[in-house]
């Protein structure tokens, strides 16, 4: 850029290039505004260790005009920062920080403010309150020539919340439902990867959707790290050289980067041919390029990876369970890896069957916990899913297509620098290291799914067999009794044996009864048996026995009775119906009177 060119305002530039930032059409613009506000809320809560409670409310205020309200219980923003956070593009605390965060460029929320201003001419209202402070209410617009906030009004006000931020803006847009690209879908997917958040969504039609919080454990906030020499580009490097507090080049390297100590610092400077005592601020663009080249020639330890904040395999499974009610769920969190000096990690999950009825797979893509709703086919994460041979895992798949199954597949990549295809952060580009990790994670999910499906098949087969046996054995008993011309033989005991149940029979002879309990199951069973007689048993109307039978064991209870039995079959308590044959399951509770004996 030479001095002859007029330096155009960034705000003005974005006004002309709003499509880059996700405002290319009215429905997308609406989603983008919600997304920028919600991302900010989640990031702020995460940094402060607060469990997010977010309200999103959209109301129709005119023909294609909507008012968006996003309210959170975050830490709030200091009064003096508010105008710039919302009214200046490329302002933000996160721009130079090397850590995993949702927003990265610092153009997010202010772009929404700008979009509101362009389409409806109305200012954005912000209320924010920090712990113990007073709530401040601003009406903000952006001076697009200067890229500076214009405060239309300010007042201190009352707010019920102890801390938090509320943003209200009015935009021209279009509200769509029941589509992959919708506010609802965005919030649902956001809730899947933010199980610690509670999100309430009130639609323009007045419907209330609540995405529940399913864990009260906030994620560990990502740790900020210094840049890794292999991950830095020329622009940021020049900026760092200009702003460093270090007086000498060697100190600059040591202080501003990870993995550089005295020895490495000397080695890099030697390779660059620069003076180790040079003032960083005095270095030219060529010098910076020499330095960058020296970085590339030097072997370095990879960057530390503890700066990443995964969702975690358990929580992904829980979230998928909550969001989709599948019959099977599995998730993997891979170990962090590094590409070009940037730490990253991949997570994948699969939810299968159950309430998921559609045979077309639903693919959920996430980058740093942001749902990626657009450009599915152009995204490397999609390519990675397609490149897995799902036939190996029992799913149908045509060449170069997503598998066909009633399933939801989730892929999340977390990194200090997610390699987006464009500024609108809608698709990830195909970095080989990332692709490989995604594939490995998905393959593990696939293996588990296959195991599950096969186990299910075996169980179904067994169940089917048992059901069929249940039909055949009684027929056999009836027919064989007819052939030998004897009393119909009781088949229940044989069925109990085949099905692994507890079988109980009572035989009576002249005032004496014998109750036999055979345990055909593979575990010890403990329960209570009741018998009732008109004339009493051992002097009582109701008799009860607590029994304990080992597998394959038979226990006998003998008693004397008078009169007729009141209960047709022995009554049992404390065992499930499916586990017993030849007796009736009852629930008396512990209050039943009667003689107590031990068998």
């Amino acid at each position, binding site marked *: 850029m030479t001095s002859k060119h007029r330096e155009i305002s960034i705000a003005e530039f974005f006004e002309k290039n709003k499509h880059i930032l996700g405002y290319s059409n009215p429905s997308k613009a609406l989603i983008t505004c919600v997304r920028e506000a919600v991302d900010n809320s989640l990031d702020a809560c995460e940094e402060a260790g607060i469990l997010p409670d977010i309200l999103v409310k959209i109301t129709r205020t005119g023909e294609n005009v909507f008012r968006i309200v996003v309210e959170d219980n975050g830490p709030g923003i200091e009064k003096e920062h508010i105008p710039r956070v919302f009214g200046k593009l490329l302002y933000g605390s996160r721009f130079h920080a090397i850590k995993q965060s949702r927003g990265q460029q610092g153009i997010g929320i202010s772009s929404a403010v700008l979009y509101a201003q362009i389409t409806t001419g109305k200012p954005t209202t912000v209320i924010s309150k920090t712990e113990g402070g007073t709530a401040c209410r601003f009406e903000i617009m952006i001076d697009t020539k200067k890229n500076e906030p214009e405060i239309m009004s300010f007042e201190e006000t009352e707010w019920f919340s102890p801390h938090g931020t509320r943003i209200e803006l009015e935009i021209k847009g279009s509200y769509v439902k029941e589509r992959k690209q919708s506010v609802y879908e965005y919030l649902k997917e956001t809730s899947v990867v933010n199980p610690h958040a509670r999100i309430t969504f009130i639609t323009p039609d007045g419907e209330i959707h609540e995405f529940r919080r399913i864990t009260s454990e906030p994620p560990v906030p990502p740790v900020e790290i210094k840049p890794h020499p292999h991950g830095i580009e020329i622009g940021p490097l020049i900026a760092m050289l200009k702003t460093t507090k270090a007086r000498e080049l060697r100190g600059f390297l040591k202080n501003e980067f990870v993995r550089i100590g005295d020895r490495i610092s000397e080695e890099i400077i030697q390779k660059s041919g620069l003076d180790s005592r040079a003032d960083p601020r005095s270095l030219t663009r060529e010098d910076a390029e020499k330095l960058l080249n020296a970085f590339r020639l030097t072997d370095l330890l990879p960057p530390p990876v503890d700066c990443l904040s995964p969702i975690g395999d358990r929580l992904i499974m829980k979230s998928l369970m909550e969001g989709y009610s599948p019959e099977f769920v599995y998730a993997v969190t891979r170990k962090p890896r590094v590409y070009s000096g940037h730490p990253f990690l991949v997570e994948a999950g699969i939810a299968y069957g159950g309430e998921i009825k559609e045979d077309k797979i639903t693919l959920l893509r996430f980058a740093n916990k942001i749902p990626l709703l657009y450009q599915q086919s152009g995204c490397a994460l999609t390519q990675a899913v397609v490149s897995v041979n799902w036939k190996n895992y029992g799913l149908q798949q045509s060449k170069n297509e997503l598998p066909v199954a009633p399933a939801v597949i989730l892929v999340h990549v977390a990194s200090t620098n997610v390699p987006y295809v464009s500024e609108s952060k809608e698709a990830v580009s195909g970095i080989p290291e990332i692709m490989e990790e995604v594939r490995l994670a998905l393959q593990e999910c696939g293996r588990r799914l296959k195991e599950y499906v096969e186990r299910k098949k075996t169980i179904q087969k067994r169940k089917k*067999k048992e059901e*069929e*046996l249940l*039909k*055949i*054995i009684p*027929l*056999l*008993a009836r*027919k*064989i*009794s*007819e*052939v*030998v011309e*004897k009393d119909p*033989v*009781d*088949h229940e*005991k*044989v069925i*109990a*044996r*085949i099905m692994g149940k507890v*079988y109980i029979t009572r035989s009576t002879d002249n005032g004496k009864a014998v109750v036999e309990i*055979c345990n055909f199951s593979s575990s010890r069973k403990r329960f209570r048996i009741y018998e009732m007689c008109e004339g009493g048993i051992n002097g009582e109307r109701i008799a009860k026995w607590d029994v304990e039978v080992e597998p394959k064991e038979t226990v006998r209870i003998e008693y004397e009775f008078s009169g007729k039995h009141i209960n047709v079959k022995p009554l049992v308590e404390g065992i499930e119906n499916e586990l017993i044959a030849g007796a009736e399951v009852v629930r008396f509770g512990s209050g039943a009177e009667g003689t107590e004996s031990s068998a």
Partner: protein
Amino acid sequence: MDLEQKALRALLDIAESIYNQLRDGVVPEIEISSRTKYNIEFDEQSEVWVYGDRTSTRSAKTLKGAYMLLRMAYVMGFLRDQLKVNRSSTLRELYYISENWGLAKFDEQSDSDRLIEDLEILTAFQREHFHIRPEEDGATVVGPIKIREETRRGVREIHCQDDVGEGGYQIPVNVDRLEFVEHDAKFVIAIETGGMRDRLIENGFDENFDAIIVHLKGQPARSTRRLLKRMNTELGLPVVVFTDGDPWSYRIYASVAYGSIKSAHLSEYLATPSAMFIGIRPSDIVKYKLPADKLSEQDIRALNAILTDPRFDTDFWKGEVKLQLELGKKSEQQALAKYGLDYVTDVYLPEKLSELGVLRT
């Protein structure tokens, strides 16, 4: 008690045992000789192959076993009723009767046939004792022998040359009811294919050589095998078997001479241990330069199976089968027509029968 009553008693004993097992809460099962080539052994006394000691258990624990027991119960019920009123039915009729048995219905006739065989093995009676008959098989006899048969229209005496047409005398289902009145035969020749049987008759082989020609019609029915056995033991006639030169035909010979694997429980009753194999032998293919076809993959598999079949465990068969595998060829009986229509009766058979000592010149 007559045989039918004893057979019925034996059937009801099986039913009783299933009933008792159910009553005692035991999963019902029955044990039956396993019917594979690994469970047949040579009986020194009768010189035939019978089932060994290996048994398999059919238990209601498995679906297959449960179905088998259920079907067996229905079949036993049916046989009991049939014996009580002195009726009989064919194997095919039994299969169709099972249409009314709901879940106990047979899927195909081979299943019901097999179950009747199971009952034969379990009871040591034959299906005839249960009043179950096979279909007429249509195998025929031509030769210098007079047979007395009790038919539904009275007793008939039939001379199998003078009283029959070209088709010959048709072997009835119950061969034990036949009586051999008189004969001028020197030997019996059993022939696999209809074409070769017709050739021998057209050439007057039965008259020229005093031979009884029995048409096997492929794998021979029990009645055909029983007839051969009776002619052999009661009339003292040597039996020779003339088939195609392929593994399936060797099995035909084996079932005549040694007893079949499927019905080894009846070997003593059906097998003719002294029956001799004429050919076509693999060595004939070489010796007579017979036109031959390439062995198919199934043929090769069947030949290899023969090598592990205990009935064929002789030097003769091992040598012939190995030779055939080397040649990779098989020939039909009618391949002999290469040398003219009379070659088989003028040259091949006289040569072979002399070798076997059946013809003395």
